[in-house]
């Protein structure tokens, strides 16, 4: 694992010591090389895991997420070049340092063996993200957004710390590889219910669950592009990953305790999808669509069946790439029009046809078109929830319909129709932007050819 961690740490001296004209080139190139190292970890045993040391391990669940994280850093750096071009050199280097630090913490979180180390790094990811959102966001609401983000996550995760320490006192260890065999069944009592809540609420807030999702639209909308990308693509998946790891400890109480959260998620995914239909703010639409997709993941993790876990893992990877791509597209709009309102920059297909192609592909993957992995994930989750309870098929069907509706609404509003007269002097697409979209889409399409990689440990 050090062969990823040390190079990522060394990206920080690289940014501070590079020549001013070379910082973007150096960091993007080397972070892409680091992501190529992670590709070797995708060759996982299906029923076992790859133990690197006492501290780090990967298995078929964390290796795709690790790959997603390392793949996203060069993309974030490429996306940030424009809006940082007017800042002073020190500020640029600080921004890149924050991104690299976040990357470091995320890599260590996804590969942590010990749950306390997972917790510490889970909390540690908050700090660079807070700094990125609050310092480099664009509107005054970013201050409020940073506070909401920090405090929602902390209030959820402090009980998790206490629950983890309690479990360590009882079981003797918090090593993930050990507790899957040693965890005693959690019987139904008030204190066990509180333990269940303490363990899960941190991840519910992070996912986010529908009732606790208030921080997400604020944080996503106010963050700069790299912040939005990393939030949507990776930080939400931390919640899903943590939930999948910690439910090992929480059986069979989960069958009983999961009902309120299932209700909230099933209803919430329809609610947030419907809100998307009425959004005027493009980034807000993509943020609410993230809530809706993650609600599916919550449903899948709480059902705890083999197919639902496969669907959850696939959906996490697919949604990471898709929503990051959508944020990049929204940012390319924002950089030209300096407003997030959708109708201000409509009819772009006539002006930027290649970008319209990327918009089309991104919207199609967002609405889970076959044979993309988005569909694989959603379909597995829908089937698993149908087997859990037949009625959920109605809700899932409504959700898929509304998802299709708002994805096409977003596509049609921004791309089709007559353009407005004031966007005539929009700059043409940069090669950087086109390559950014291609690099997002390429893993998605390649994974559609071999989804086995991202189907998780149950496959």
């Amino acid at each position: 694992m050090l062969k990823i961690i040390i190079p990522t740490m060394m990206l920080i001296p690289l940014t501070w010591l590079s020549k001013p004209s070379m910082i973007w080139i150096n960091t993007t190139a080397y972070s892409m090389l680091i992501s190529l190292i992670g590709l070797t970890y995708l060759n996982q045993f299906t029923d076992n895991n790859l133990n690197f040391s006492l501290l780090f391990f990967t298995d078929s669940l964390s290796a795709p997420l690790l790959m997603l994280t390392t793949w996203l850093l060069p993309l974030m750096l490429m996306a940030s070049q424009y809006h940082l071009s007017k800042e002073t050199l020190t500020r640029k280097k600080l921004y890149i340092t924050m991104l690299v630090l976040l990357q470091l913490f995320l890599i260590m979180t996804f590969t942590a063996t010990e749950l306390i180390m997972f917790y510490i790094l889970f909390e540690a990811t908050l700090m660079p993200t807070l700094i990125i959102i609050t310092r480099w966001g664009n509107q005054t609401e970013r201050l409020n957004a940073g506070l909401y983000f920090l405090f929602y996550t902390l209030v959820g995760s402090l009980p998790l710390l206490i629950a983890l320490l309690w479990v360590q006192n009882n079981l003797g260890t918090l090593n993930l590889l050990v507790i899957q065999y040693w965890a005693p069944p959690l019987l139904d009592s008030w204190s066990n219910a509180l333990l269940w809540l303490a363990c899960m609420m941190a991840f519910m807030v992070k996912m986010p669950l529908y009732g606790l999702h208030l921080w997400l639209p604020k944080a996503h909308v106010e963050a700069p592009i790299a912040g939005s990308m990393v939030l949507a693509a990776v930080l939400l998946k931390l919640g899903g990953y943590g939930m999948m790891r910690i439910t090992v400890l929480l059986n069979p109480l989960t069958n009983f305790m999961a009902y309120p959260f299932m209700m909230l998620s099933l209803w919430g995914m329809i609610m947030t999808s419907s809100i998307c239909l009425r959004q005027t703010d493009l980034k807000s639409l993509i943020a609410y669509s993230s809530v809706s997709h993650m609600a599916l993941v919550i449903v899948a993790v709480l059902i705890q069946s083999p197919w639902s876990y496969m669907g959850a893992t696939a959906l996490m990877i697919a949604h990471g790439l898709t929503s990051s791509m959508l944020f990049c597209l929204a940012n390319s709009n924002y950089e030209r029009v300096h407003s997030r309102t959708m109708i201000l920059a409509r009819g772009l297909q006539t002006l930027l046809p290649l970008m319209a192609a990327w918009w089309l592909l991104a919207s199609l993957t967002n609405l889970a078109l076959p044979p993309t992995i988005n569909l694989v994930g959603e379909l597995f989750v829908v089937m698993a929830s149908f087997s859990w309870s037949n009625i959920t098929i109605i809700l899932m069907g409504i959700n898929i319909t509304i998802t299709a509706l708002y994805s096409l609404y977003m596509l049609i509003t921004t791309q089709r129709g007559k353009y407005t007269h004031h966007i005539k002097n929009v700059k043409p697409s940069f090669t950087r932007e086109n390559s950014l979209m291609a690099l997002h889409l390429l893993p998605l399409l390649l994974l559609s050819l071999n989804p086995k990689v991202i189907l998780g440990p149950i496959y």
Partner: protein
Amino acid sequence: MKPPILTIIMSTVISGTIMVLISSHWLTIWIGFEMNMLAIIPILMKKFNPRAMEASTKYFLTQATASMLLMLGITINLLLTGQWAVLNMPDPIASNMMTVALAMKLGLSPFHFWVPEVTQGIPLSSGMILLTWQKIAPLSILYQISPSTNPNLLMAMATMSVLMGGWGGLNQTQLRKILAYSSIAHMGWMIAVTTYNPTLMLLNLVIYIMMTLGAFMLFMLNSSTTTLSLSHMWNKFPLITSLILTIMLSLGGLPPLSGFIPKWMIIHELTKNNMIIMATFMAITALLNLYFYMRLTYATTLTLFPSMNIMKMKWQFENTKNTTLLPLLIVISTMLLPLSPMMLTLL
């Protein structure tokens, strides 16, 4: 203050605390406390304005009362055990009396009312000594009598202290009052764990002293005592603004900074002893503290302008304030988490 006088007074302060630390006779402990208190009054009154005199008077009255209560506890112990040796105090009356006396000295709830007012009235450097050095002596006595203290009393004081420290600091803009309420809250954390593992109390004290010294020195660089003057720091010391961010987040107990070490260890110890509700309660009220630290960072660092001042003459002005060992304090306050096993074995 003239240097010879300052030397004598500071050495009296230091030797007073050291007398408390090394003595095995209760009378010399009391003498040490009195030396410390009397010598620090001139330090608190470095400036001759009525505010400073009022603060020094309040400090003197509370600390003298606390010393007398301590003496009362010592005398009751002498009455019941017939000896002056500093061992445990088996009698609950003497032990409670002493705990209350030490709580008054430390500024724990419900005896916390003097801390914000005294800290506000004195200069920044005196406040620094007040909130860090003055805590060492009472906590050392608490460490020594910790086996015989009443856990209920300590837990009640800890609960009230974290609440008061959290809520009291929410409405403040004066930096010294903010650090005073932070001190009250941290003292609450320290005594919550005293009955279970006094070593963790010392760990929390050491890390708290490092962080508070660092925070005070950063404020002294700009002579800023209000949030407003702190928000002007971007102009003179842009680097220091980011250091204020890290120290404030460390005071708030955010991982991966070293302020998280005492909180984690204390919650671990409380959980081991089945005080789970207490641990949850303290952890959540620490978020109140984090809110006003975040407000300071918002004013200072996170709302920096896109470009800095291009004043050409800045290089001619050197730093004139006494910021001893500031880099060391910053590093200790932020990067100690990977070394936490070493911290536990050192104490």
